[in-house]
């Protein structure tokens, strides 16, 4: 397998290099310089659009500062080739006038410098600003982009307001399209991996993503830095093509232009970004004959396109070539190893998860808790809450709450509305840090850990107000939850290494098994938001379970279900506990569910535990009756 992957990769690279080399050599004989110029600028815009799409389209972080990163890459690489270039060329024994191959070396080094500096700037800017959301982030990045521009404008060493001149013109068609290919393949492969699903999860719902163990900040910064690096390379090529840089090329209008490409192509569609980048580079050229009306028409077209096709050309889908089936299959087989295409899942997944419906045949064994030993013996402690207190301002939502859950426990947490039940969940999962008291998971104090770390320690939850990744498919919702079960790095994903492919196959098998268990397998391609309510609740449980928890927190799973669905749900919860063995803590208003399946019930009222015991004890407990029915009701009861 490994040898074949390498063969494909090397082969594809050689073919690409040969094609680009031939085009580079013979294009000038067929078309004039003007066309080549448009091709080169299109390529640079493709790099910008595809890299911004990673940030805006896939990760959902609204950045309006892409031109700033382009500027940093352009200026640093140009500075490098102007000052370090000549000595490198000389060391390689060529004269600066006809640099040839040495020029290529300088350009590659310059690209690396530009990418690195832009990525570092992305990190420096991203780490503080990515705490902001939506429009605030947009404005902050716009401001950052402008600050970068003004700072460059004031650096005399790079020409200040006069601009930077005498940049060697190393950029050729070959280099631009080689970099375009790299940009597309890297982004494509990154997005189609567990890392890509993590990015999408951040876009869809950060709280839910964290609850499944996705370190959202890390992924936001990753997307930002990778996007910035590619923008930096685009800037490098731009400078080495024009041989002159001026900060006027990098105003916020340039950032807008790139955002327009991303939106027009379709957020989260790489082929869309490519098409829109080409179109928007061509459009002003095509409109050139009408001179002064050109920009007015451009603006009107833009408005019209947004009104008529707000989701962009392709929505979030990718363009599919109209190929005959055998060709499509061949292309898919090839793409599996190199670039576009799903990771090499099909064959391996088939091997790993034979069509059998039996859940036990599927490799979900890792999900099962270690054998609990004798039922009679004291089971291991999973969760211990000691005097847990959560206060908002002066209001104590939960006060001095104690709770103990052992392996395979199924415990209910009930109480009137506003009693603090969900707050207990939020404190356990790290959404709100406890004000006082301790949350101990298998002997480890969780105090102050962020939600994704707590998830990694084996806590999974569902949400009272469903938080699915609405635009992602049912399958991808569950696959995202397998994030913690894989260890491949973003680098593995880009290169499609064996580790990445094996883990992708395992993830797919595991996710499908989970969907079969939950009877959702038929719906795996449906967007989660399209499911009816009851199925959404079930999908959320599937997702939580797929993360392999030893503690499963279910927040009102039966809410909004009809009696039949509720009965199925009860059976399902018991089955989950019996087959996969997590301790289950259940918040529920439906007493039939709580009394029917819980072995122990804890009752909260105004944040204070008023009772704990078996369902039978709770039903007769005077304080519980009072809490639910009021003192008068209690008297009648």
């Amino acid at each position, binding site marked *: 397998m490994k040898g074949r992957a390498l063969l494909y990769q090397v082969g594809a690279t050689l073919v690409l290099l040969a094609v680009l080399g031939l085009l580079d050599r013979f294009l000038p004989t067929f078309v004039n310089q003007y066309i080549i110029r448009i091709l080169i600028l299109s390529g640079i815009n493709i790099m910008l659009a595809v890299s911004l799409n990673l940030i*805006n389209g896939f990760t959902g972080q*609204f950045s309006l500062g892409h031109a700033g990163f382009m500027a940093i890459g352009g200026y640093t690489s140009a500075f490098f080739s102007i000052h370090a270039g000549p000595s490198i060329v000389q060391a390689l024994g060529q004269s600066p006038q006809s640099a040839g191959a040495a020029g290529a070396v300088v350009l590659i080094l310059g690209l690396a410098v530009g990418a690195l500096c832009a990525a570092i700037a992305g990190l420096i800017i991203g780490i*503080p*600003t990515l*705490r*902001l959301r*939506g*429009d*605030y982030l*947009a*404005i*902050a990045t*716009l*401001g*950052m982009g*402008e*600050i970068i521009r*003004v*700072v460059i*404008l*004031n650096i005399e060493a790079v020409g200040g*307001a006069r601009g930077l001149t005498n940049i060697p013109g190393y950029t050729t068609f070959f280099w631009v399209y080689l970099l375009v290919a790299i940009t597309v393949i890297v982004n494509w492969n990154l997005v189609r991996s567990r890392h890509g699903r993590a990015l999408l999860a951040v876009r869809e719902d950060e*709280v839910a993503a964290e609850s499944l163990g996705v370190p959202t900040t890390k992924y936001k910064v990753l997307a930002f830095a990778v996007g910035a690096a590619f923008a930096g390379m685009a800037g490098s090529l731009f400078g080495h093509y024009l041989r002159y840089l001026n900060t006027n090329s990098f105003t*916020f209008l340039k950032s*807008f232009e790139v*955002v*327009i490409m991303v*939106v*027009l192509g379709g*957020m989260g569609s790489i082929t869309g970004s490519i098409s829109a980048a080409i179109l928007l580079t061509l459009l002003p050229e095509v409109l050139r004959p009408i001179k*002064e*009306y050109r*920009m*007015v028409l*451009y*603006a*009107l077209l*833009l*408005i019209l396109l*947004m*009104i008529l096709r*707000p*989701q962009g050309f392709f929505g979030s889908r990718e363009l599919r070539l109209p190929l005959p089936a055998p060709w499509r299959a061949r292309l898919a087989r090839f793409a599996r190893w190199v670039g576009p295409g799903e990771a090499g899942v099909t064959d391996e997944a088939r091997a790993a998860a034979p069509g059998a419906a039996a859940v036990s045949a599927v490799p979900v064994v890792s999900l099962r808790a270690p054998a609990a030993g004798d039922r009679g013996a004291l089971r291991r402690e999973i969760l211990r809450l000691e005097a847990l207190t959560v206060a908002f301002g002066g209001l104590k939502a939960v006060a001095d709450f104690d709770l103990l859950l052992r392996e395979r426990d199924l415990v209910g947490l009930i109480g009137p509305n506003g009693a603090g039940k*969900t707050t207990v969940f*939020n404190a356990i999962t790290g*959404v709100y840090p406890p004000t006082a008291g301790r949350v101990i998971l298998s002997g480890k104090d969780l105090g102050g850990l962020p939600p994704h770390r707590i998830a990694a320690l084996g806590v999974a939850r569902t*949400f009272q*107000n469903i938080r699915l990744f609405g635009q992602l498919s049912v399958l991808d919702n569950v696959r995202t939850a397998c994030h913690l079960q894989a260890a491949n790095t973003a680098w593995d994903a880009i290169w499609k290494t064996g580790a990445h492919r094996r883990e992708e196959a395992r993830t797919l098998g595991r996710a499908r098994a989970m969907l079969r268990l939950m009877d959702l397998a038929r719906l795996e391609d449906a967007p989660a938001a399209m499911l009816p309510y009851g199925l959404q609740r079930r999908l959320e449980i599937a997702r939580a379970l797929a993360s392999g928890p030893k503690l499963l927190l279910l927040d009102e799973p039966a809410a909004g279900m009809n009696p039949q669905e509720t009965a199925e749900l009860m059976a399902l919860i018991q089955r989950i506990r019996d087959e996969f063995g997590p301790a289950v803590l259940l918040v529920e208003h439906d007493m039939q569910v709580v009394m029917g399946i819980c072995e122990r019930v804890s009752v909260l009222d105004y944040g204070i535990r008023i009772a704990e015991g078996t369902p039978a004890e709770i039903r007769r407990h005077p304080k519980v009756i009072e809490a639910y029915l009021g003192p008068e009701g209690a008297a009648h009861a």
Partner: protein
Amino acid sequence: MQELLQQLVNGISWGSIYSLIALGYTMVYGILRFINFAHGDVYMVGAFVAYYSVFFLGLRSGGVAGALGALAVIALAMLAAAVLGVSIERLAYKPVRRQARLTALITAIGVSLFLENAGILAFGAEPKFFPQIIASKSLRLPGGAYVTTHQLLVLGGSLVLMVGLNLIVYRTKIGLGMRALSLNRDVANLMGVPTDRIIAFTFGLGSALAAAAGVLVALSNPRIDPLMGLLPGLKAFVAAVLGGIGSIPGAMVGGLLMGIAETLVSGYISSTYRDAIAFSILIVILLVRPAGLFGRAVTEKV
């Protein structure tokens, strides 16, 4: 000390222009959660409408006639801009109101590009010189700083407009509707608030204020050109964010702070850093207090 005072006078005068523009941004954002990037260009259109109406009305400069003329010109510009603002909303923004926010933003960028380039077509790309219908005089302030009649006009004009706006927003039925919309558009609609009409009114009101700002600027800094709204528009938006977007007093204070900060920076550090400083303040504010000075922090319920 005298110099500092002078900078403050200049800053407040310039800042009140930002405030006027920022009010339009903040009202629209408050109601639609939408950054109307074309707002700065409405300010430009206001200045040009005033420019042509000066000639159309055959105004002469100086004296009482000049002052009355200026009032007439401001009123005309505000009216024209209000019509423009309402038309933009109806033709371009309303069709995308229910779409993703980025779609609306791109539409706004499109409208902005359209107004700028249509402006270049109609008015020419070369700067025009706004006729000086109000004579410039300098008055000496107690601290030794000078204030020009233009600056007083800008300050007085924006003060009157802001008071008027406050009366509309807090004392009229339509203002109540605006406030209801800003809290929850759907519920306001269910309660019988005519949302479409109020949104259109808000655009008209904001555009009128921007146009007034455009004329006030043109009266004192007579160079006007079709791209004059680009940077002031952007900075006024930053001022609105600074004050807490969606908050009317926030926009006023944010604009003033922005103007003062800018004049101080260009006076004491370097005028080339002027634009960068505006954004630096913004970023610091956003990081320390993301909701802005007067904004309410919104926490998400999990």
